[in-house]
């Protein structure tokens, strides 16, 4: 446990909008045991070298969600990220504020965009007035129903996923991984009576903007796996409402397409996604693709072993989850 100290150079993002015209990086070098968390290093800087460094923190044990930041370009909790591996890999540690939220000062960001998306999914039980809660006793819930939440109750709202998400960066209307994982938590809650409404609404409110890059799952310190829950929501939304949106039609077309030939028919997929009229708007793009890669505009023949793919689909259908 106790190990010899190593010199740890930290390049810390500094920016005070009231005083600085541009951000800068400040180098601090500390002697630390390799297992020392980055947060402890930052607090040591504050206590011994520079009390003007601003950082948001509280519990130091990965439960309050305050200290998410970019450590060498990865979103994570500073309190549970040891300095040793970083120094070994890169020779220094670069510490920056989270992305997709404006900087207040130094490593502190304004989390308003994150909280707004969280509130946007209406994160509270919706009850049917005709079906009140059982008076004086708890709702029964089986251990299996608790399991169905997966690890979403572990979410500490640290926003590491929100910071890591390229879809949030590209389109601020995307709710982001945390809000969608939270939505999933309410959709599977047997006490909630708005499952159908929630699923229908999210189809047009950003569900299909997810890029399926899994950076959220990669960055989550509590193993909530938001991208897997977003996948579940997509399936539930299609099951609840049918493929009514661009995103869901694309996904369903993709699935049918693969099933029939074992290979994507890009032209057919465009029609399945946009519909006949909508496809007219894609003609320019089609010509462009035809010029660059004429082979993908041809109707594909079924690939060798396409019947095995059919077997896989049948097996999945038999499981009944429609995947």
């Amino acid at each position, binding site marked *: 446990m106790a190990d010899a100290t190593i010199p740890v150079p930290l390049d810390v993002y500094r920016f005070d909008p009231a005083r600085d015209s541009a951000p800068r990086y400040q180098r601090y070098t500390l002697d630390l045991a390799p297992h020392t968390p980055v947060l402890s290093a930052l607090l040591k800087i504050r206590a011994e070298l520079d009390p003007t460094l601003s950082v948001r923190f509280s*519990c130091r044990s990965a*439960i309050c969600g305050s200290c998410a930041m970019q450590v060498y370009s990865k979103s994570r909790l500073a309190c549970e990220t040891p300095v040793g591996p970083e120094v070994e890999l890169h020779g220094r540690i670069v510490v920056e504020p989270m992305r997709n939220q404006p900087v207040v000062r130094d490593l502190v960001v304004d989390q308003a965009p994150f909280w707004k998306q969280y509130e946007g999914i209406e994160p509270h039980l919706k009850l049917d007035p005709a079906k009140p809660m059982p008076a004086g006793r*708890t709702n029964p819930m089986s251990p299996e129903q608790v399991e169905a939440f997966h690890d979403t109750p572990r979410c500490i709202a640290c926003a590491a996923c929100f910071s890591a998400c390229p879809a949030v960066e590209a389109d601020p209307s995307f709710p982001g991984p945390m809000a969608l994982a939270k939505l999933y938590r309410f959709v599977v809650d047997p006490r909630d009576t708005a499952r159908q409404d929630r699923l229908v609404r999210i189809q047009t409110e950003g569900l299909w903007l997810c890029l399926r890059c899994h950076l959220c799952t990669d960055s989550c310190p509590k193993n909530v796996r938001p991208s897997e829950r977003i996948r579940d929501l997509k399936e539930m939304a299609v099951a609840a409402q049918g493929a009514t949106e661009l995103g869901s039609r694309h996904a369903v077309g993709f699935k049918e397409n693969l099933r029939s030939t074992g290979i994507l028919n890009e032209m057919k997929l465009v029609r399945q996604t946009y519909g006949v009229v909508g496809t007219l708007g894609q003609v320019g793009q089609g010509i462009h693709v035809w010029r660059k890669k004429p082979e993908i505009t041809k109707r594909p023949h079924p690939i060798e072993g396409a019947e095995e793919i059919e077997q896989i689909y049948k097996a999945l259908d038999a499981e009944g989850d429609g995947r």
Partner: protein
Amino acid sequence: MLRHEVVVVGAGLAGQRAALAAIEAGRDVAIVSKLHPLRSHSGAAQGGINAAVGAEDSVETHIFDTVKGSDYLGDQDAIEFFCGEAGPTVVEMEHFGTIFSRAPDGSLARRPFGGAHFPRTIYAADRTGLALLQGLWERLGSERFTLYDEWDLTNVVVRDGRVQGIVAFDRKKGDFAEIASSAVVLATGPAGRIYAHTTNAHSCTGDGIAAAYDAGAELKDMEFVQFHPTALLETSILITEGARGEGGLLTNASGERFMIRYAPHVQELASRDVVSRAIVTEVAEGRGFAGPFGPYVHLELMHLGKEKVESRLQEICDYARRFAGIDPVTQPIPVYPAQHYMMGGIGTNRRGETNLPGLFAAGEAACVSIHGANRLGGNSLLETLVFGKQAGMAAAAYAATAPATALRATDVEEATAPLRRWSSRTDGEDPSTLRTELQRTMDRYVGIYRNEADLMEGIRRVRALRARFERVRVVDQSRIYNLNLTDALETGHMLELAETIVVGAYARTESRGAHARTDFPKRDDARWMRHTIARRAPEGPALTYAPVGYTRWEPTERVY
């Protein structure tokens, strides 16, 4: 000037529950918190919440266990009320949306906890605090109120013998602001950070308790500080009592289950004060382990099996693996006691009322007292909700009839004059130096075992630090998110509260619950079955004593 009918300071479980009660009573409510509500320290509570809902259990037994656990310093009338509210409180939280762990029949799962006759602790894996905090915050989300988050409380303004409002520092804006309100509920949590080894979050600096004390409120039983037996070595991160509730064992360096000698009937599930003293004694008598991060004993979970450990104790598996490089499935966890909970706090009755009209308190910041000299595990989450609601209701009722507040524009100037002096100095001490010295002082002189000479030295050192604090200097000249300023503010609060703890401990010449005097090893009911009341005076805390609320449980010797 901002104005609200009820201002709740602190947004953990007690503050949120108070706010909800006041909103439901029709008041215009503001919540002021130094953290976003979901980052509150309530979320760090692991093991569970007590309610005697099992067929074999009864409210009566819960009352008895709590009275006994308190070492007969808890007010029995308040404890009766408290335990009676447990069942309805848990049901309400379940209806709000809390996701609890369940038994196969769909009822709430329960685990055994220290000092309890029956498995009474309802839980959500080992993140019960987080589950409740999410459930309550998400319930509050459908109500209308104003949230001022990342605001630090600096003062409670009292004029004409009653509360007029608060003054606070808005971190993000970098400005002081006043909020006029005739009713203020303080639910600001504990001051665990006055100790170096504490399970508490960095934010637990007792701001509300200190502000109440400054405003003339009575503090009760401050010398009773709980040390949790099983904090992770080096970081003092909490390893839940639920680990022992699930069957975890404590062993010393010879592999012996030493608790058999200290608590023959219930061993590892004795009350926290008993287990903490046992560990310290084992180490003092040479039967502990020694390492670079200090002495320790082992908490063994290996025999429980991978599946049970990883499902019921999921978070602490992560903590042990990430923060100590230990896998609890295959290795013992190195643990040692650390400061965990303050039984004392702002003195209230069971409606959350203090001695100051318009000032209410709840949760760990308050002292009703139901925990007396030692709190039972699983009773603090329950306390936040039961008494948070009571304080919110009482504040709402008071605000409905209170005369208009007389907060003045100059109140901010007056309240913040010292803070502005700290920033304008060109020399002086850094607050973190003083904080570190305070923490070492409290660990060394006001720890688990206490004696007259140590406590005398503790008083001397804390007073010397308080004198040095007069020359504290804030070097950060930027206003935005100035943590150097909030550091100084918090350090001042902690120094003031540390003095009440050590002075109270020095005066109490007996051993009761968590207050263990080696020079007075026996409980002395004739002289000391009474609450310590501390009021601010120019020369330091002025102590008086108040009777314990007594109904029907005769004090007997406490054996586990």
